[in-house]
């Protein structure tokens, strides 16, 4: 039954067949998925919950299409984290999931004994399974061999060898999906009810089929002895971090100039070719000025994610996590909190959801409480704008580290430090608990592939541009209307006399202690929706004030704010919870308003006090 061809299952169904791809973490599952689907993939949520899933469509030569689902990595079928629970639930067809018609189990062929253990459990789901032994290139290069036919006869399911990195062996995957891959005769597998029994079974299969494990990778040992060296290790860690931040400025600047001039010239062209009307004002001042001001920061965000991608795909990030473990421990958090906090550098929302991997309820609360304090990528445009406007472009440590990069790095460190301090306070008072055992898997080092990195960047660009096209566009349009009414003598008002202006002036007394004016006040209100909205808002406000199509936003800010006010604004954005999506997700994850309200109040107080202090100190 388990070896039946996949298309016999639901031959009459008109909807595409669903095939799940599963496997342990770090076996090249995503590379395999990317290799199969290329650009034909999208990220969606699992039904009912918000763990992201990746679905790809594959057109087979027969004309049939298949939906491929890339499941989160599973260490075993005893899920401990929400991620793993989702993977197992999809395989079972539980919850609101539709049970896949077939499963592709990806294993690391260089480490077969430990990996084969998963096979009996996956076969038990009763759908056709293809066992893919990935990393064939690595296995061969290190002198290992595997007899896929012999293993196939032992497990009673087709087994193939591929290198997802190089794209070899992938034809057989398509044959399997088409149902033309002849399955071996079914086999009655022994009942395995414990992990040692599963492992014993795997060992016997590996031995009986004459598997030659590869020579241990000498590179891995060598790299570890450098990256985890008592002196060199931490220094390299520091060097890597500095390089990332320096390149956000040096590498990204020419690209940003390109994007900026593109937006400015297209805005200028639009302004010249349209007749004077309200629509023109909305398009040129509102949308081009507002959305354009945010889109300029795409290159910087992509460079940050390119680096994170390289660090993660190469296996270095796990070593960095090992080195950073001590600081996590010092604040009373368990090591697994480190991973959600790392993803908070992209966005607090996935981080708060990833906090589900933290089993201890109190640790989980502490983790999701501090996650929005780490510097998410929505802060990057705000920081970059203010730093470029107010911090001189001077070297600090020769050519290695410039002053601007150092300030940016300082803001990241500040966010992290305050997050840790907050965790420490929470963990030593209201959220005290006993620590859970900490196990950190160090994956083998691998070369990141261009393919995976570019897909990652493409994904990031889509997310960023979608936000620019929705949240930022919407707030910009609303703001533009508020700034264009009421008409005075049939003419649009000066922005200070508009409805938006009066709202800004109403909150001005509140932001004045931070050295901020009513224009920034408007920005603080609009950016409650999302932090980077303030860049668009300021772009619109200063753009409507000036007659130019492209407002030189940095110059406008410099002439309107003092250095101390700029630092106060940086502090405000470092700490305030200017993100409604985060508030909403915390409410949902904690099941009530108590935690989000506490968090919002705490962060606002922090923002206000540090902003006030900064303005007092820097004038």
């Amino acid at each position, binding site marked *: 039954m388990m070896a039946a061809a996949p298309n016999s299952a639901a031959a009459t169904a008109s909807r595409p067949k669903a095939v799940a791809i599963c496997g342990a973490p770090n076996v090249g599952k995503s590379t395999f998925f990317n290799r199969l689907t290329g650009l034909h993939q999208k990220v969606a949520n699992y039904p009912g919950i918000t763990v992201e899933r990746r679905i790809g469509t594959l057109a087979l030569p027969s004309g049939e299409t298949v939906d491929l689902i890339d499941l989160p990595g599973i260490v*075993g079928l*005893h899920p401990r984290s929400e991620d793993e629970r989702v993977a197992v639930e999809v395989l079972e067809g539980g919850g609101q999931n539709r049970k896949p018609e077939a499963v592709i189990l990806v294993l690391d062929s260089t480490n077969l004994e430990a990996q084969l253990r998963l096979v009996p459990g996956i076969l038990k789901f009763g759908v056709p399974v293809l066992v893919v032994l990935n990393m064939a290139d690595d296995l061969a290069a290190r002198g290992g061999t595997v007899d896929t036919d012999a293993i196939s006869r032992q497990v009673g399911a087709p087994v193939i060898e591929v290198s997802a990195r190089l794209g070899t062996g992938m034809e057989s995957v398509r044959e399997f999906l088409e149902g033309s891959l002849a399955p071996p005769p079914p086999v009655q597998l022994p009942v395995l009810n414990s992990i040692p029994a599963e492992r014993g079974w795997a060992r016997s299969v590996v031995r009986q089929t004459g598997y030659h494990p590869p020579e241990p990778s000498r590179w891995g040992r060598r790299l570890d002895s450098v990256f985890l060296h008592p002196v060199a290790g931490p220094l390299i860690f520091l060097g890597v971090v500095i390089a990332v931040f320096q390149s956000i400025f040096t590498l990204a600047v020419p690209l940003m100039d390109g994007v900026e001039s593109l937006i400015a010239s297209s805005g200028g062209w639009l302004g010249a070719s349209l007749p004077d009307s309200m629509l023109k004002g909305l398009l040129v001042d509102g949308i081009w000025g507002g959305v354009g001001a945010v889109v300029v920061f795409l290159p910087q965000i992509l460079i940050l994610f390119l680096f994170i991608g390289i660090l993660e795909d190469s296996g270095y990030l796990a070593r960095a996590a090992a080195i950073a473990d*001590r600081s996590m421990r010092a604040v009373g958090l368990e090591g697994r909190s480190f991973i959600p906090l790392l993803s908070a550098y992209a966005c607090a929302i996935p981080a708060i959801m990833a906090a589900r991997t933290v089993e201890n309820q109190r640790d989980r609360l502490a983790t999701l409480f501090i996650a929005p304090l780490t510097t998410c990528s929505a802060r990057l445009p705000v920081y970059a704008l203010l730093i470029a406007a107010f911090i001189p472009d001077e070297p600090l440590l020769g050519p290695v580290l410039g002053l601007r990069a150092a300030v940016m790095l300082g803001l990241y460190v500040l966010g992290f430090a305050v997050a840790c301090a907050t965790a420490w306070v929470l963990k030593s008072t209201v959220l005290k608990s006993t*620590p859970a055992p900490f196990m*950190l898997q160090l994956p083998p080092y691998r070369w990141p592939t261009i393919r995976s990195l570019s897909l990652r960047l493409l994904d990031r660009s889509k997310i960023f541009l979608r936000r620019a096209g929705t949240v930022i566009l919407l707030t910009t349009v609303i703001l533009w209307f508020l700034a264009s009414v009421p008409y005075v003598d049939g003419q649009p008002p000066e922005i200070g006399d508009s409805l938006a202006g009066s709202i800004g002036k109403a909150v001005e007394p509140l932001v004045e202690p931070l050295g901020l004016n009513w224009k920034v006040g408007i920005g603080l209100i609009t950016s409650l929706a999302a932090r980077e909205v303030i860049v668009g808002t300021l772009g619109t406000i200063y753009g409507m004030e000036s007659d130019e199509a492209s407002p030189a936003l940095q110059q406008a800010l410099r002439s309107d704010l003092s250095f101390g006010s700029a630092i106060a604004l940086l502090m405000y954005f470092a700490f305030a919870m200017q993100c409604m999506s985060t508030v909403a997700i915390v409410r949902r994850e904690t099941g009530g308003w108590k935690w989000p309200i506490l968090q919002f109040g705490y962060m606002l107080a922090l923002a206000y006090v540090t902003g006030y202090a900064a303005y007092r100190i820097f004038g």
Partner: protein
Amino acid sequence: MKILVDLEPGRTAVVDELLFDSADAVRLMELGFIPGSSVSCQRRVPFGDLAVYQLDGAQIALRRETAERIRVRPQVARGGG
């Protein structure tokens, strides 16, 4: 030598017993800490109390207090072992 934390870098022993509740023990076994299998200490991580252990098929870093709760026994010298 009775517990994993006492294993010096470069030395190998055999996992004997996991002194954890069942959920934690299951995860440790899934990662390769199976009673009867061999484990070697590869290195200690600078700053702090992590050590990296090499198992058959995985490289896992454990904190001191976790390694204290894994009992090990010396490896019996066998041909090639």
